[in-house]
């Protein structure tokens, strides 16, 4: 039994814990996801700031270059002076209305640098790309764009060309020197700042990389050093015209994964506290239960102990009473009449005590599952007769007549003590509760293997709805019935014994009073063999 209780307690502790753990884990995971998402957003915002800086830089360059290309003359010397004086300008060129190259004049005198530029940009000029790029695609009568950026790849990579279509429909182009472009971007973008303590729960160090169209880093800042093949937390392309370049934001992956872990710790500590509480409660209840069980066991043990203790003196009383009975037979009947009467009482009382003790012991044994039968061969009617004889004085005193219709005189296998106990309990009940009826009828019948004994009295009877309850231990219908003595275990024991004997004890309907039917399995010695 204790194991069942323990299992129950364990379940009481574990089930709520498990449910809460699962729910809480999901909650913590969601929270961690949210925090990480928030961090990603912060990183994205930082990258957007950078992108805005670059966009602002290009807007400034556009304005400068627009001013620069407000050329009065296209005199080659003037144009070359522009190249010589401006650090960011690699080359300047002019196309006529038909898109043909006017300056530098391919047929004229060229410096080495100009020759090299024309070589790289040849395709752009041949295909008249700028003239076409200036037209917004899809429109027929579109007004060509006045100015814009054109990207070409040669040499180390991306080259930017700013072009502007003049009123005269000529195009002036400025090729930005590539190294200078990167230099300018580097000058705009931040250097690595001295480390600051981490704010708003953010990871402490980060690295931002500006990566070109081939995936190589052109510039980077931030004190964190990512692994070779690390993936960025967030990345985004730059604005035009450098939209083939990207910004990448790197953080320590482990640190990032650990962010928001506090939610899990909170969950864990909450569960631990709850678990502790539940365990304490469970332990408390278990101890209470154990104590009560212990006390109950102690009570039962005590009673058993007492009963055992009582048996011995009781046996002595009966023995000496019987001796006294024999002695009295030697004395004159008239003189011995009163003593005999006294002796009868002693004997009856001691028998009752015996019965009571017997019931208690049987009850205890039955509770411990230690009840068993000890069969001998006997005639049922003999046993019934003996029991009736023992009760006759007490019954007579109460004014109860006993009629025995005996028809079970076969020799059978029978636990005599069990039958005696059953009959004793039933007759004692009649004595206690049905004395008013004044009559007790006992019949015995037998067939092959079964013996049926019926006891009918003329007392008040037992109402139908109580017919099963009377067989529950400690149940007594009412204390009103006179002679409210009794332990309430008589009937239950009688039924247990009958059932143990392969039969049953039932309360059947009757007009007059209570009608108890005992059925016992009494196989004959020949058919059973030795058990």
């Amino acid at each position, binding site marked *: 039994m204790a194991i069942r209780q323990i299992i129950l307690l364990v379940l009481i502790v574990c089930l709520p814990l498990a449910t809460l753990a699962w729910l809480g884990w999901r909650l913590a995971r969601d929270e961690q996801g949210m925090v990480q998402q928030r961090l990603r957003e912060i990183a994205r915002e930082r990258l957007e700031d950078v992108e805005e800086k670059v966009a602002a830089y290009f807007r400034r360059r556009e304005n400068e270059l627009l001013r620069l290309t407000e050329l009065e003359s296209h005199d080659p010397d003037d144009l070359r002076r522009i190249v010589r004086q401006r650090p960011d300008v690699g080359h300047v060129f002019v196309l006529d209305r038909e898109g043909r190259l006017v300056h530098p004049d391919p047929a004229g005198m060229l410096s080495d640098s100009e020759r090299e530029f024309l070589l790289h940009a040849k395709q752009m000029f041949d295909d008249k790309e700028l003239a076409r790029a200036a037209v917004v695609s899809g429109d027929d009568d579109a007004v060509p764009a006045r100015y814009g950026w054109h990207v070409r790849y040669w040499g180390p990579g991306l080259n930017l060309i700013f072009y502007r279509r003049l009123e005269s429909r000529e195009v002036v182009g400025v090729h930005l020197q590539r190294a200078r472009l990167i230099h300018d971007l580097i000058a705009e973008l931040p250097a*690595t700042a001295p480390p600051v303590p981490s704010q708003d729960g953010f990871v402490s160090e980060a690295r931002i990389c500006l990566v070109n169209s081939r995936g190589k880093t052109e*510039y980077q800042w931030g004190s964190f050093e990512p692994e070779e093949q690390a993936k960025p937390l967030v990345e985004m392309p730059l604005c035009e015209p450098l939209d083939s370049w990207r910004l990448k934001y790197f953080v320590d992956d482990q640190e990032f994964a650990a962010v928001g872990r506090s939610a899990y710790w909170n969950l864990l500590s909450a569960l631990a506290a709850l678990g502790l509480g539940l365990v304490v409660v469970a332990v408390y209840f278990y101890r209470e239960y154990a104590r009560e069980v212990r006390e109950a066991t102690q009570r039962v043990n005590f009673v058993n102990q007492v009963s055992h203790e009582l048996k011995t003196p009781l046996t002595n009383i009966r023995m000496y009473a019987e001796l006294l009975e024999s002695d009295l037979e030697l004395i004159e009947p008239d003189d011995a009449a009163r003593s005999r009467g006294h002796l009868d009482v002693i004997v009856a009382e001691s028998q009752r005590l015996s019965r009571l003790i017997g019931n208690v012991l049987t009850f205890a044994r039955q509770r411990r599952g230690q009840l068993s039968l000890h069969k001998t061969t006997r005639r049922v009617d003999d046993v019934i007769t003996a029991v009736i004889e023992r009760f006759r004085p007490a019954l007579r005193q109460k004014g109860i007549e006993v009629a025995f219709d005996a028809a079970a005189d076969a020799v059978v296998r029978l636990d005599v003590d069990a039958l005696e106990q059953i009959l004793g309990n039933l007759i004692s009940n009649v004595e206690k509760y049905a004395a008013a009826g004044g009559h007790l009828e006992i019949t015995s019948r037998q067939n092959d293997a079964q013996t049926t004994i019926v006891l009918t009295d003329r007392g008040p009877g037992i109402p139908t709805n109580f017919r099963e309850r009377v067989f529950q231990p400690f149940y007594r219908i009412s204390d009103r019935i006179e002679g409210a003595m009794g332990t309430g275990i008589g009937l239950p024991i009688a039924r247990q014994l009958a059932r143990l004997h392969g039969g049953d004890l039932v309360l059947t309907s009757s007009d007059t009073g209570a009608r108890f039917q005992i059925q016992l399995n009494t196989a004959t010695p020949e058919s059973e063999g030795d058990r």
Partner: protein
Amino acid sequence: MCRSAKFWCAVLVVAVTAAPSWLRAAQVKLDVSMAQPTLLAEKKQTTFVKVGLTGFKMSSKGKRTPVNVALVLDKSGSMSGTKIAKAKEAAVWAVRRLNREDIVSVVVYDSTVRVLVPATRLNDKDAVCRKISDITAGGSTALFAGVSKGAAELRKFIDRNRVNRVILLSDGLANVGPQTPSALGELGASLIKEGISVSTMGLGLDYNEDLMAQLARRSDGNHIFIEKAEDLAKIFNFEFDDVLSVVAQEVSITINVARDVRPVRVLGMDAEITGQRVIVKLNQLCSEQEKYVMLEVEVPATRESQTREIAKVDVSYANMDTKTTDRISSSISVNFTKSEEVVRARTDLKVMAESVLQVANLQNKLATALRDKGDIEGARRLLERNYVYLKDGAAKYRSEMLRVRALDNQNQADRLDGRDWAATRKEMRRYQHLDARQQSY
């Protein structure tokens, strides 16, 4: 009475004629000369025109051009140990040579760039020196970004009346960002247009000397190969000597070559040659030091009696003393003779020696290229020929400079193999740079 009056009259005359030379503000001296002022007649030939510029002495003693310098120090992992320690010492030492008028910034770089000391007037030298002393090494090498941030710091106080210079110290290969010699060269070319020069110091045997040399060459800065970290302080000293003695900046030389004469090439420097016009830009001239442009021209066959104008030279520069833009001009002609003897006798030895130096410099560059391709034998032969060429020149034109350089070439010819090559190559670049630009150290 008369004698004393005469005396005082003489004094007066002397004073009046001499005084202007004291009072007159100093100017850069322009000296255009031909290697061979007299050429052989009736012969199409090439010869050299030297345009020499010499810096003046500042008018008042102790006066110098204020400086706007950015120290860009490599603190990548390879610098740890002695190198970074010596670099820090040298930088601190250099800073102590400057004064309150000067502006200093310190930029350090490894994988990323940190602006250690933003451009600031040097009011608190100790604070700057302390920051320098705290530098620790570790990481990779974002050289381009370091130089860029240094130039950005310079720009905060850029002034044509200051010497604006980035001094770069690196011991390694650039491996973050643009890292080719041409990219760094392009950056140098764009910085010189703003008046910023980058001097590059290569420390040890592992740096990329082409990258460092290109950056310096195209921005008209100095380049030096430092084999041992212990020499850093001395080199920084030389560099600062150079920086602190600049008297003219934004030097623009325009040579208009006469119509029938063909400009072939300028030896050793970047020049823009468009038709008959040759334009060369120098960023600075130092006090009492000469820099020159050696232009090779092709002269058509000319009759003996004729004098041919070769070129007109116009020079403009920012005068650091008077804070004005000065312009000076000159022109040069040659005459012709049938006599080889006369041609030889009239040869300008010094200019001829310098032209030999420049031609040998080109050959030395070719030898480097050959050795790079793996042709050790070809390179050695070329260097041996160069040695002979220089030795002959040394004798013919009585030039100590050529003699020394001849021995250098012979030395290099012996050290083209295996482990020697790394050091030899750096040395070659260093001297190629020095000779082409007449570097002061």
